[in-house]
Structures are given as structure tokens and as C-alpha cells.
């Protein structure tokens, strides 16, 4: 199943129609007539045929989950990822602290320091995923597209702390250097038609 099918929510012409329902019979003879009609109309065999047809067609819709996975929508908000810059591989996070500030469940904690190049770097960064409600505010507020929501929805670990580690969330360094980090389309990225929607800031009040 491709992603387009998966995301198609147009139900306007899906073959649904209202069924004619006869009035409920009042007299005994009417009931008898209905019973006879139902008995010899053969609707039971229609039911039998429908299931047999599906069995012969063998059009199986099962997704054998661990082996096969359905595509997840790009804007799905799963466990966070920290991005790197494309070619240099520098961490995108500038340590501005906006995500920590906006987090409504208070689960982001960061420490910053000035390193030897006089750049502000992140020394500590943790997300308490036990508290996180995956609202996406942190990704939305991030000015540098550094913290985003990834598509990793299978979270199993012995300890929650295992996937709150900054180094784990961070894109591996060599991947970034080799240009293997794809243009990020997911939650936190700029939406596709942003150019048309942007308005010039009114300067004159």
C-alpha cells in the first residue's frame, strides 16, 4: 500500500448508498408473507458467495507487522531527533533555549556553555519522554530546525533514559558529512507552500 492510498481520505464516492427498508408488517399474514419471501430470496447464499469470493480472490490485506510496515505520514510526531547541518556536520542547535521555554510539560532540560571558539554549544540536553506529550511545540518553535520529530514510533527499551540521550537523538556525524541526511520533510520543517503564504511585515504603524 503506497502512501497516497493511505492518506486518501476522500469518501465522497465510495459506493455507499442507503438501503430500502420495508415497513414493519403489522398483521400475521403480512409477517408470514415476509418470512416466505425472506426464506426463498436466497440472501443467505449471497452471504456465502461473498465470503467464498473473497477467499478465492485471496486479496489479503494483512500487514505482517514486524516484517512489513505501513508508511508513516511525514508530519507524524514521534520521538525527537536532533539534526546536523548538511555539509559541515555541525550541530544545528544554537542553545537558544526556546524549546525548553515553550515546553508545556516541562520535559526539556538543557545546559549551555561558551566553548574555546567563543561559540555557544549545548553541554547537556535531555528530554524526559515519560512526561513528553508529543505536542510538537519544541519543533515548531526551533529557529534552526535543530530539534524535529522523527518517525521512530517503535519505542521499546528497558529504561526510558535510553532514548532521551542527546547523543542518540543526534544525527550521526559521518552521515551528515556524507550528505546522507535527507532534506527533512517532517514535523518542524517548513511547510511546502510557505513562500506563498508569507506576508511582508508591516513596518508602518
Amino acid at each position, binding site marked *: 500500500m503506497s502512501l497516497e492510498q493511505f492518506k486518501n481520505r476522500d469518501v465522497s464516492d465510495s459506493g455507499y448508498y442507503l438501503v430500502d427498508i420495508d415497513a414493519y408488517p403489522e398483521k400475521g399474514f403480512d409477517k408470514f408473507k415476509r418470512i416466505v419471501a425472506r426464506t426463498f430470496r436466497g440472501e*443467505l447464499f449471497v*452471504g*456465502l458467495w461473498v*465470503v*467464498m469470493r*473473497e*477467499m478465492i480472490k485471496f486479496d*489479503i490485506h*494483512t500487514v*505482517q507487522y514486524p516484517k512489513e510496515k505501513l508508511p508513516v505520514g511525514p508530519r507524524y510526531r514521534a520521538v525527537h531527533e536532533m539534526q546536523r547541518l548538511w555539509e559541515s556536520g555541525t550541530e544545528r542547535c544554537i542553545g537558544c533555549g526556546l524549546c525548553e521555554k515553550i515546553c508545556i510539560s516541562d520535559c526539556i532540560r538543557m545546559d549551555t556553555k561558551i566553548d574555546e571558539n567563543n561559540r555557544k554549544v549545548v553541554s547537556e540536553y535531555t528530554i524526559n519522554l515519560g512526561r513528553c506529550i508529543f505536542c510538537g511545540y519544541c519543533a515548531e518553535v526551533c529557529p534552526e530546525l535543530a530539534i524535529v520529530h522523527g518517525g521512530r514510533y517503535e519505542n521499546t527499551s528497558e529504561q526510558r533514559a535510553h532514548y532521551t540521550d542527546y547523543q542518540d537523538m543526534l544525527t550521526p556525524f559521518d552521515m551528515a558529512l556524507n550528505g546522507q541526511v535527507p532534506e527533512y520533510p517532517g514535523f518542524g520543517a517548513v511547510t511546502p507552500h510557505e513562500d506563498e503564504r508569507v506576508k511582508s511585515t508591516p513596518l508602518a504603524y
Partner: protein
Amino acid sequence: MEIAYFIETVIKIVVILLVFSALAGFGTYFERKILAFMSRRLGPMNVGPYGVLQIAADGIKLFTKEDIVPTNAVGPIFKIAPVITAATAFMAAAAIPFLPQFTIFGYTVHPIVADVNIGILYILGVMAVGFYGPLLGSLASSNKFALLSAARAAAVFISYEVVTGLSLLAPLMMVGSFSLIDFNNYQAGGISDWIIWSQPVAFLLFWIAAFAETGRTPFHLVANDHEIIDGFGTEYSGMRWGLFFIGEYANMFFISFVIVLLFLGGFGDGSVLGALGFLLKMSFFFFFFLWVRAAWPDIRPDQLMWLCWKVLMPIAVINVVITGFVMMF
């Protein structure tokens, strides 16, 4: 001769027990697979190739599960009830010829444990006793949902024994014997001799009643799935619950054999082809149980009773009367 007969009977009993216990297990596999295919699913796929070993996994699970007897349950009755279901299902098999007689190493084997002269009466009687399993089990388990299930079960079984008996009366009048082997020999001449052609109404009635007899959809009121609670099995766990299932599936196999023997010529003249045809016909009826479960909904208890007493029973009586008149003149 006596000793040889004794040994032969014991061997036959053991073979039937083993074969049909295993088949009952495979019956659950077939049921899950066919229901899955008919609803565009795959069914069990992970244990063994195509999930064949799922029954082994289920068996291990059932055997090793904790056996719980609830507080306030009537212990002895609660414990014996599943055994009644399974035991009566297999006891009914004693009078069913599973294959035509064949000769092996110069010794003629009759694949029937006891060709008693009240064969079909015995089978129906023992199968009817099997209903005490769910009834006693649910009454003894001190659970209100089980109690409701017992009430429904009693209503269904009492109703449908009437239809089973009356529908069989007409063919019995024609054949003049209760033995299933006599039934088979009566129809041995070929397809045109099958009783279904002379007694189509009796065939349909017996077939419908067989669904109630085995407690299958659309008459699955013993353990009503729609209540989510599993009727008589609510308080059962582990192998006791498993015994109910072995009994149910064994019953489905045996009643399929009986339908074919009574109405569809059984194994015919006793050739290999006849034996194969016998098993094929039996498989169709077993498959039909599963097919119906995929296609049709359950009906309400009052509809079931209405169908039995106001429709099927009068038809059965009329059928018997007409058969009697035709035979008289």
C-alpha cells in the same frame, strides 16, 4: 477369537481417539485459517510454516496454564463437566463406520468400533448427553453469564433434539434399520440411490439441526460470542477449557460423517474411490461449518426457538406423514 476381537477393538478405539484428538486440534487451525481468508486476513502465520504449528503452541499453552476453580464453584461438577463434553463426543464415534471394511495381511478390518443395531439412535443419544458438559459446567461455575449461557444452551438443545429425531424418522422408515452400515448399504448403488434425492427435506432439516447439535454459528448460543464473555467457558481455563474445544471440534467431524452416511451415500460400494469420496464429502460438510461461521450472523434465542417449534418441527412431521403415505401405497 474373543481375545482377538478384544485386541482389535482396543486398537480401533486408540486409533480413533488419537486421530480425532489430533484432527480436533487441526480443526481449530483450519477454522482460523479459513475464517481469516474469508475476511481477507492471513490467520496464524508465525509458528511453523504458514502457522501449522500454532496448534502445538496453543496446546502447550493450554496444558501449562494454571487450573483455576473459582470460589463458590461446585468443585467436582465443575471439574467433570469438560470431560463429559469430550468423552461423549468420542463415545458417539463408536457407532460410526469411518471407512469401508478393508483387508490387511489377510485380516478383514471393520473400521467401526461397534456395529450396534441401534447405531444412529446411540449416536444421537450420546451426543445429546454431551450437552450436559456445558450445562453442568456453567451451572457449577457460579457465574451469572455462565448461568445465562446454560439457560440458552438448554433451550437450544431441547428444541433441536426434536427436529433431529423427527427429521431422521423418515429415512429410518425407508431403510428399516438404525445401523449406519445398513444405511450405507441401502445407498450403495450409486448417486441415484442416495437418500438425499428421496428425502431432501429430511436432509435439510437434519443439516440445520446439526448446527444446533454442535453449537455452531448461526446457533452458537451456548457460548454467545456477541457477549464477549465466552458463555459456559467464562470461568474455565487451561486444559479444562481445551477439553470443551476438543469435544466441540470432534463433534463437528462426527456429525459430518453422520450426515454423509445418512443422506449422501456414505462410502458407497466400499471401493477405494468410495472411501475417498466419503472423506471428501465429509470434508465438505466440515468446511461448510466454517464457511457458515464466516458468512452468517448468529440469531437470537427467541428466533431460534421460533424457527424450531413453529417452522422446522411442523415440516418434519409433515415429511414423516407424507413418507408414511408414500410407503403405504
